[in-house]
C-alpha cells in the first residue's frame, strides 16, 4: 500500500488531545505515539521514543479513523459523477480512513480483477483505504450465483446484491447458503422487489398529497421477515443495510435477542430527515429506501442509541448535477454524504440522542466489526488510522467547502459543528486542515 511512502516522518506524537477509543474503553486526555505506521503507545511514550513530528491536539478529540460501511466512489463506470481519487480526498478530509464500496459499479464487482482494479486505484489515490463487497449474484441479476470463493480470496469483505434485492426466494436461499459455506457476511438491503417497484417516496400522507408512487413500509418488513427466516435456516451471518422504518428496527432487535447472527446499520440522513422534507419536490431528498415518518426517525435514533444498529454510515452517493435536475420521480436517488458523516453525527451528541463514546463506537469499531476488519480502534500494535477533530469548530457546508465531487445534499447551507483537523492513514498524514 502507499502507506509505505517515505516523505513523512515515521514517528509521530499526538499530544494533549482527548482520546476517545470506545473499543478499549478509553476516554481521557492522553498522548498517542505512532511508529512505523502503527500505534506504538497510548499515554506513556515507549522507551526512547523521539517524535519526528508533533501534532498538537489540545482542545481536540483523537479517535480511530472512521469506518464507513457504504460509500460509492462511482469508479469504475460513472466517473462523470465522481472518482476514487475525488472521493478518497473527501473521505480523508472527513476523517474516514476505511470505506466500503457496494458492488454496483459498472462493471459490477464480481471478479478478482474488479476488486484488484479498485484496490490499485485507491492505493494510487492514497488517501483512504477502500474495501469492497462482491456481487451476491452474477451481474446483480438475481438469477445466478457469483463466484464467491474467488471473490473472498481476492479480498472482498462480504457479498451483497446492493440496491437490487432478489425477487426469487429460492435464489436468495441458495445465495445465503453458498455465502455461508465460505463464512462470508451477506449485506442485505431489505426491500421487496415487487412492493417497491416504481416507488420514489414513503407510502404515506406526503406521497399521497404529492401524487408520488409510494414504497410501503411493508416493502421493508416483508423482505426482512423473509430474510430472517432464511438466515435462521442457513446460518449465514447477515447484515441489514440502511434500515429505514421503526418496525424493521424492531424486527432486527427481536432477531438479535433470539440470537441470530444479524447486525444492521442506518445511514445518517435518515436520523435527520423525514418524508416531510420531500415537499416542494426536493430531489436532494429522493433516497432509496425512502425517508419515512417522524415516528420512524425517532425509533431509528433509539435503535442506534441502544446498539441495535451497531454502525452509522454515510450511504454516500455522489451525483452529477444533471442526475438531480429532473422532475422528482425521474431523478437518481441518493445523497452525497462523506463530508457530513462526522459533523451530523456530532449533532446527535449535541441533541443528546447518544453520548460521544457511543457515537464514535458506531462510526469506528462498530462498522469495523461488521466488516471483520481489525481497524476502528487505537489498540497498541494496530495500524495507525486516526481522526483528530475540533468538536467546537463551526463551518458551513457549501459548494466551496464540500470536498466530494457530488454536491447533491439537502444539508447544503447547514451550519455544522465539528471539523476534522488531521487524518492519519497507517501513520501517514493524509489530511490537515
Amino acid at each position, binding site marked *: 500500500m502507499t502507506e509505505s511512502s517515505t516523505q513523512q516522518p515515521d514517528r509521530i506524537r499526538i499530544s494533549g488531545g482527548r482520546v476517545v477509543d470506545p473499543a478499549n474503553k478509553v476516554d481521557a486526555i492522553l498522548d498517542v505515539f505512532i511508529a512505523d505506521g502503527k500505534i506504538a503507545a497510548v499515554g506513556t511514550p515507549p522507551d526512547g521514543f523521539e517524535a519526528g513530528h508533533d501534532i498538537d491536539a489540545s482542545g481536540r478529540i483523537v479517535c480511530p479513523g472512521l469506518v464507513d460501511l457504504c460509500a460509492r466512489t462511482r469508479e469504475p463506470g460513472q466517473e462523470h459523477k465522481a472518482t476514487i481519487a475525488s472521493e478518497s480526498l473527501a473521505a480523508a478530509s472527513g476523517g474516514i480512513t476505511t470505506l466500503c464500496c457496494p458492488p454496483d459499479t459498472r462493471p459490477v464487482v464480481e471478479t478478482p480483477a474488479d476488486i484488484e482494479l479498485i484496490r490499485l486505484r485507491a492505493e494510487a489515490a492514497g488517501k483512504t483505504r477502500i474495501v469492497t463487497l462482491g456481487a451476491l449474484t452474477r451481474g446483480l441479476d438475481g438469477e445466478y450465483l457469483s463466484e464467491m470463493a474467488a471473490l473472498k480470496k481476492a479480498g472482498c469483505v462480504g457479498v451483497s446484491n446492493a440496491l437490487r434485492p432478489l425477487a426469487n426466494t429460492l435464489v436468495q436461499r441458495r445465495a445465503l447458503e453458498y455465502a455461508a459455506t465460505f463464512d462470508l457476511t451477506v449485506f442485505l438491503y431489505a426491500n421487496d422487489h415487487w412492493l417497491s417497484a416504481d416507488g420514489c417516496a414513503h*407510502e*404515506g*400522507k406526503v*406521497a*399521497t*398529497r*404529492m*401524487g*408520488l*408512487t*409510494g414504497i*410501503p413500509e411493508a416493502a421493508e418488513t416483508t423482505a426482512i421477515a423473509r430474510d430472517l427466516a432464511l438466515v435462521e435456516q442457513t446460518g449465514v451471518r447477515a447484515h441489514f443495510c440502511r434500515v429505514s422504518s421503526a418496525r424493521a428496527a424492531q424486527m432486527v432487535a427481536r432477531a438479535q435477542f433470539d440470537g441470530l447472527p444479524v447486525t444492521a446499520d442506518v445511514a445518517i440522513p435518515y436520523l435527520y430527515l423525514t418524508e416531510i422534507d420531500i*415537499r*416542494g*419536490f426536493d430531489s436532494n431528498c429522493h433516497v432509496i429506501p425512502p425517508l419515512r415518518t417522524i415516528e420512524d426517525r425517532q425509533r431509528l435514533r433509539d435503535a442506534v442509541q441502544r446498539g441495535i444498529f451497531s454502525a452509522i454510515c454515510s450511504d454516500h452517493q455522489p451525483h452529477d448535477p*444533471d442526475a438531480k*435536475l*429532473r*422532475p*422528482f*420521480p*425521474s431523478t437518481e436517488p441518493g445523497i452525497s454524504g462523506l463530508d457530513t458523516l462526522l459533523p451530523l453525527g456530532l449533532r446527535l451528541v449535541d441533541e443528546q440522542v447518544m453520548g460521544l463514546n457511543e457515537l464514535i463506537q458506531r462510526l469506528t469499531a462498530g462498522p469495523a466489526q461488521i466488516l471483520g476488519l481489525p481497524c476502528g480502534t487505537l489498540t497498541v500494535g494496530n495500524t495507525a488510522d486516526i481522526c483528530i477533530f475540533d468538536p467546537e469548530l463551526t463551518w458551513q457546508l457549501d459548494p466551496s467547502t464540500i470536498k466530494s465531487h457530488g454536491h447533491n445534499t439537502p444539508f447544503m447551507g447547514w451550519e455544522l459543528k465539528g471539523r476534522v483537523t488531521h487524518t492519519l492513514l497507517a501513520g501517514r498524514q493524509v489530511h490537515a486542515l
Partner: protein
Amino acid sequence: MSNASLQLDAHGRLKHFLCIEGLNRQLLSEILDTAESFTGVTEQTVKKVPLLRGKTIVNLFFEASTRTRTTFELAAKRLSADVLNINITQSSTVKGETLLDTLRNLEAMHVDMFVVRHNDSGAAHFIASHVAPHTSVINAGDGRHSHPTQALLDVFTIRRTKGPDFGRLRVAIVGDILHSRVARSQIHALNLLNTGDIRIVAPRTLVPAHAESLGVHVYHDLEAGIEGADVIIMLRLQHERMQGALLPSEHEYYELFGVTEEKLAVARPDVTIMHPGPINRGVEMDSEVADGSRSVILEQVTHGIAVRMAVMSMAMHHHKERKA
C-alpha cells in the same frame, strides 16, 4: 421552496399556475369570477379578445391529450395569443434530450408561457423553478399530483349549477383516486371552497394511503357513498388497472361502482353528474346517466375554455405589470 411561494408573486397574485394547494379562497374566487366574464366571449360571434396579442404560448405535452390540449389551444387563441403545440410523447426523450434541454431550446425562441403536461409528478413545479423570469408555467397535469385547471372548471361548473354556497353540498368522487391527479386537485379545490361533505368512493386498491388526510370521507360502497349526494364526479378507469392486479375486471367494477339510473335513486333528485372525460361507457357509468338531463359533462368541456382563459390571462397579466 413550497408550491405556494413558487406560483404566487410577492403580492399573492398568480405568476405560474401549478396546483390548487397554496391558493387562498379569495384568489380561487377571483379566477372563477374572471372565467365567468370570459364565458360571454366564447358565446359571441367574434370569439376573441386582444388580451394576449403578440404573446407566444407553447403547449408542451409529454403525454397524449385531446380535450385538455384543445381547450388550452382554443383559450389561448381566443385571447389572441400565438400558439404552438409540441407533443413530445416519446421523440426527444428517446433521443436522450433531457427535459431541461428541451425547455432551454424552446426558451431560446422567446416563449412567454408554457402549458405543460408530463407523466412525472412535480414536473410543472420543476419547470417553473427553471424557466426564465418572465415566463409563466401552467400545469396541464403532472403525474398523479395535480391537474388544477380541470379542478377549477369542475368547481366552476358546480358553482354555476348549484350556486356559490358549497357549504351545503355533498360531493362524491367515484373511481380510481389512487392514480388520479384530477381527484387530488378537485379535493383541494372543494376544501378551499368549504364544501360541506367531500367523499371518495372506490375499492381499497384504488384509494391512496391515508386518503382521509386529504380532507375527505372514504367509502368503499357506491350506494352508501353517493347517498344524498348533490354532485357525483366519476373518474376515468384506465384499462391497464386490470393488469396491475388492482381490479379483477371491468365487468365487476361496473357491477359495483358503475353509476346507473337505478343506483342514482339514493342520491338527491337534482344530483349533478360530472366526468372529466373521456368516458368509458358501461364501465364508470351507463349511457343513460352520461347523456341524461342531470349530466353536465359537456358543459364541463365548454367551461374548460373560459377557466383556462382566466388562468392564462391572470398569470400573464402579472408579467405585464412587472415589466411596466
